[in-house]
């Protein structure tokens, strides 16, 4: 287990290094590291590495970490392995928030807050539908259907807002952002998001014990003295904050929150704290890898990150869906 974990960390570092080196301008690893840590190297290499690739790399890392952790938390809360910020409509809600913030010309420090407001509204809406009339537990089908419905309403709202109030330039920018991409992210955009993400991560780690209790079901958790409603609310808020920060930074990148926790469960087992770290890092690796492909697959032109992630994650979701429906029917 310890060796596996070391391997995961090593692999994360390796893929970060590859991301740093490859691209339109290929840089030797040593030179790249020198540029980052020693502030030396020729002018051009230094500009590309520190000015463009490093913030982009860290953005990919943060987005992957945040989406995967958010997915893990949502799966733990709903006790349903198909939950993910993208599929449950939380990301769409956050996107509406970002679109509003952009229209109102807020700067990047406050955009994640708008995203959070949108995301939390969406999550309450979806949770209240998925919960239904039963006192405890959520219905998988209702959760996903509510997510689909919410996503289309959110998409319509964004289009409506843009065509009514926005300039053409704004609409174009928003469209590109919605496709999901992290090109051109700079330090000013990255740092506030890192702060919001850290808050979410800290809450998630502090709630590890509560997550363990909630895994026994709400009834048992409450008979063990857990204030179930309050805990769920705090964990949900953390999950939404993580997803919204990612959306604010990179637009609609789907399926990371679904795929990463699954892979990491298969590879590393189920302990809560371990899962928080491992699915986070797995998510980071996924996004770093997708971004590498997005930048290098067709030279001179970039593919949208969201599109690539959907190509990887979509089939995976279909596989999980058929698998879990089989399970439901066999019961």
């Amino acid at each position, binding site marked *: 287990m310890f060796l596996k974990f070391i391997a995961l960390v090593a692999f994360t570092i390796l893929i970060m290094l590859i991301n740093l080196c490859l691209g339109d301008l290929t840089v030797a690893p040593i030179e790249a590291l020198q540029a980052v840590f020693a502030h030396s190297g020729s002018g051009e290499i230094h500009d590309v590495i520190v000015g463009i690739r490093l913030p982009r790399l860290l953005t990919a890392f943060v987005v992957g970490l945040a989406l995967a952790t958010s997915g893990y938390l949502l799966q733990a809360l709903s006790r349903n392995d198909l939950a993910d910020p993208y599929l449950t409509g939380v990301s769409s809600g956050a996107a509406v928030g970002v679109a509003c913030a952009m229209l109102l010309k807020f700067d990047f420090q406050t955009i994640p807050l708008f995203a959070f407001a949108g995301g939390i509204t969406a999550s309450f809406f979806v949770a209240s539908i998925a919960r239904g009339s039963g006192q405890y537990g959520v219905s998988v089908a209702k959760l996903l259907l509510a997510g689909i419905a919410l996503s289309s309403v959110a998409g319509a709202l964004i289009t409506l807002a843009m065509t009514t109030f926005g300039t053409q330039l704004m609409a174009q920018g928003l469209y590109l952002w919605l496709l999901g991409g992290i090109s051109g992210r700079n330090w000013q955009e990255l740092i506030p998001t890192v702060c919001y993400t850290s808050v979410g991560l800290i809450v998630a780690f502090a709630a590890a*014990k509560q997550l363990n209790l909630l*895994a026994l079901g709400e009834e048992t958790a409450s008979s063990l*003295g857990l204030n179930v409603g309050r805990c769920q609310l705090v964990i949900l808020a953390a999950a939404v904050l993580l997803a919204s920060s990612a959306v604010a930074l990179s637009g609609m990148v789907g399926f990371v929150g679904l795929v990463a926790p699954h892979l990491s469960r298969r590879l590393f087992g189920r302990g809560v704290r371990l899962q928080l770290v491992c699915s986070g890092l797995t998510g980071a690796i996924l996004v770093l890898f997708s971004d590498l492909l997005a930048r290098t697959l067709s030279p001179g032109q970039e593919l949208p990150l969201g599109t690539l992630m959907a190509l990887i994650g979509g089939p995976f979701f279909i596989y999980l869906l058929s698998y879990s429906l089989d399970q439901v029917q066999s019961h």
Partner: protein
Amino acid sequence: MALEPGEVLAIQGPNGSGKSTLMKSLARQLKPSSGSITLDGQNIWNMNIVDFARQVAYVPQSMETPHDMTIYELVRLGRNPHQSWWSNQLSKIDIDTINSALERCGLNRLSDKKLHELSGGEKQRALIAMALAQEPHFILMDEPTANLDFRYQLEVIAIIKELKEQKIGIATILHDLNLSARIADQIALVGSADEDKGAPSTIVAIGRPEEVLKEDLLRSVFNVELAFVHDERSNLDLYVPVSIAKSSEKNSATQI
């Protein structure tokens, strides 16, 4: 209805009569729409949830258990009401309590076994061990013998007897009249709601087993003819369901 420490209360009644609802109300899972449940004179809904969990443990009939969790990991969660909200560390007292809970349920050798590999009897004992780790004064059990074969049923009964000796008050739903008669100090008989008359389900009788387990009372609650047998060897009074009572046959015939 009242339960003292060291007393066993068995709740009996037909399916759908509201035994589980009653149990969940006692366990502070469902808020009663009228009436009140008090613990040491205090309404349980005015108590802090952690204080309540330190005094009353609830063993549900079945529980979703996370894949890969071991018995030990489950039982240690029973210490939650005694720990601070952030701490996962086990104190010396925690460890001793967990070990003695495992031992009392005969699980100390199985503590590293995964929950999904357990037999029905082992799983039920694991749930009871988790409740014991809470060090409660009262334990509420929702059909602890459901789906268990004779041997495991007797094992659960033996655990209940032992807990009773340790002055823990126990309320449990049981379907088997014979088991109830053997361990209960009190039996509460819950009757089904009468939809024709619009009467809600009520506790028809409550008292010592010999007062409640009477032929006419049982016939009217369960709609079943019973035979009463005395077994010389075990010196036990046994209840054997013989046939569906005539009156209820008539009822169902007229409904058709």
